[in-house]
């Protein structure tokens, strides 16, 4: 495939190297002449000095026959325009844009960019997957009543899994209000409701009993 990479920063550089290793024809467009020189010294003549948003530059590098254009500059606006010019002027079948502001994902899709890659979102997803989120979240504090509403998710290691609600050693003064199983409808807990891994539990407690509640539901 002939792939044009707009932006010869770190992302563009390593992307081009990886694509070259996979046997693709790769061309980098970079506005900064010095970056161009460095890239061409290090990985051969693959970088052309020019603005990847300019139709004239894109014509020069044969964008009409490109299979894909990937815009990875540090500016969302530039990446959008590079993709749009490629798509609407040169009919490049696939365009990919890097985005900084996750909000731009929807806008870019609407404006014709085929794929968006948001570093911010990728890192966020990785954090959510890799780092177990805190099992207890505060939803609402009724400070003048000395009460709070919290959410507890039953972790895979919890001793509460498989137990009935009445078997739990819940601290007196806290109550389970709602159980939201992972793929079933939420229900009001009864003494004979069984707890499962991943259940999301909405509970009422006092700040002092929070630790004991967490231990009863998420303890190991």
């Amino acid at each position, binding site marked *: 495939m002939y792939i044009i990479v707009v932006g010869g920063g770190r992302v563009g550089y390593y992307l081009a190297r990886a694509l070259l290793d996979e046997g693709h024809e790769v061309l980098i467009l970079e506005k900064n002449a010095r970056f161009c020189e460095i890239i061409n010294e290090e990985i051969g003549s693959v970088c052309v000095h020019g603005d990847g*948003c*300019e*139709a*004239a530059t894109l014509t020069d590098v044969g964008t009409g026959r490109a299979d894909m254009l990937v815009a990875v500059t540090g*500016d*969302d*606006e*530039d990446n*959008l*325009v590079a993709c*749009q*010019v490629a798509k*609407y*002027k040169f009919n490049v079948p696939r365009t990919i844009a890097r985005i900084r*502001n996750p*909000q731009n994902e929807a*806008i870019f899709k*609407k*404006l014709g960019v085929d794929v968006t890659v948001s570093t911010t979102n990728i890192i966020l997803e990785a954090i959510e997957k890799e780092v177990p989120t805190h099992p207890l979240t505060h939803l609402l504090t009724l400070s003048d009543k000395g009460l709070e509403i919290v959410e507890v998710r039953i972790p895979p290691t919890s001793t509460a899994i498989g137990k009935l609600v009445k078997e739990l050693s819940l601290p007196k003064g806290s109550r389970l209000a709602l159980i939201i199983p992972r793929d079933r409808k939420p229900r009001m807990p009864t003494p004979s409701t069984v707890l499962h891994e991943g259940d999301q539990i909405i509970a009422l407690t006092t700040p002092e009993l929070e630790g004991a509640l967490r231990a009863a539901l998420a303890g190991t």
Partner: protein
Amino acid sequence: MKIVIMGCGRVGAQLGGLLDADGHDVTILDVDAYSFRRLSSTFGGTALLGNGVDEAALKRAGIEEADVFVALTQGDNRNVMAAQIAKHIFNVPRVICRIYDPLRQELYDTLGIEAFSPTTIFAQLVKEKIER
């Protein structure tokens, strides 16, 4: 009419002043508060600090009720992106955008943005002056 202008440079400030003097409801947006010094002392519209490619800033500027959106920053791409957000996300009836690069201007004109290139216009103007 309710008009939102992005970019308070020389052109933006002057346009804002003219439209305001004609009785339009003008909001002018810029990322640099210092640029608002260009507005005349009689300007009665709103000067707002914010980035026109940011949906929240556009909402604050009243884009949802705007009849016209004009993009006049120094960056062609920023203008183009803001203009498209105004047109396709907020459905502003009239969107006008400055694009210095004549080739990009042609492209966005065909994509439904009312784009004009000062480069082309000014070159034409000077040529006519010379040949007259």
